[in-house]
């Protein structure tokens, strides 16, 4: 069994309205040194694969098919094999 953690965020140039609102909220609360806030999405996926290389390929396929919209989003991931 493999365990992938996927982090999705907006590409640099894309406006993230929620991030902006959170930033302004935090600033109002007194955290005045904030430069920027970006909100993203986080996924944990457990799945079977034949080996690490196969797991990597499968995970990337899943991410690019559904988890992100390539117009606006980018991602990174980490992947590990789970013990029993």
């Amino acid at each position, binding site marked *: 069994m493999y365990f992938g953690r996927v982090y999705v965020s907006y590409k640099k140039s*894309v*406006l993230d*309205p*929620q991030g902006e*609102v959170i930033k302004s909220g935090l600033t109002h609360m007194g955290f005045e040194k904030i430069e920027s806030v970006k909100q993203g*999405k986080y996924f944990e996926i457990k799945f079977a694969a034949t080996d690490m290389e196969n797991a990597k390929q499968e995970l990337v396929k899943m991410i690019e098919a*559904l*988890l992100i*919209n390539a*117009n*606006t989003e980018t991602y990174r991931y980490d992947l590990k094999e789970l013990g029993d």
Partner: protein
Amino acid sequence: MKAAVIQFPGSNCDMDMMHALKDFKVDATLVSHNETDLSDYDAIFLPGGFSFGDYLRSGAIARFSPIMEAVKQADEAGKRIVGICNGFQILTEAGLLPGQLMQNEHPGFICDEVKMEVTNPDTKFSRDYQTSEITLPVAHGEGRYYADQATIDSLEKNHQIVFKYQTNVNGSTDDIAGITNQKGNVLGMMPHPERAIEAILGNTDGRKLFESILDN
């Protein structure tokens, strides 16, 4: 004309679209997202709502519904395809229209009547509009049209932008409210013409859109 209104789990403007089409005496049928054949129909409507809860991204999961292959075939056959609100979001996710609908610039759902401009009155969907300024209802949380500059330039160049907001309520790039594909047979728009066809509800500016579609 025979029309199909696609019903995804979570669609909630499907019955409104049926009601509107029937008002125009269109032979309209609700078609489940699990169906795979749309060859009987002349026009396909993807209604508003929250297909699959709009979880992950609006329209992202609906585009994997079995019916979407048939929608693509309908496009290849040059049939008219109309995506309203969530339907627009599904069409962009499915790649039938360029760009993407993102969260409104000021987060939160907005329901309002918005002035807009018919920027291209020569499409299959807008040719009956005689005035360039109309008012249509909007109701969405993710209606900010986004595309990169090259895409926007090509939309402009090919006259694919059908409607633009006069008051840009959601921060859409280039004030875009509705576009067609390059061939001109697929329309996606965030405003709800089906909510604007009866005087008793206070707005009839959507009627011309339906008349344009029916006007062969």
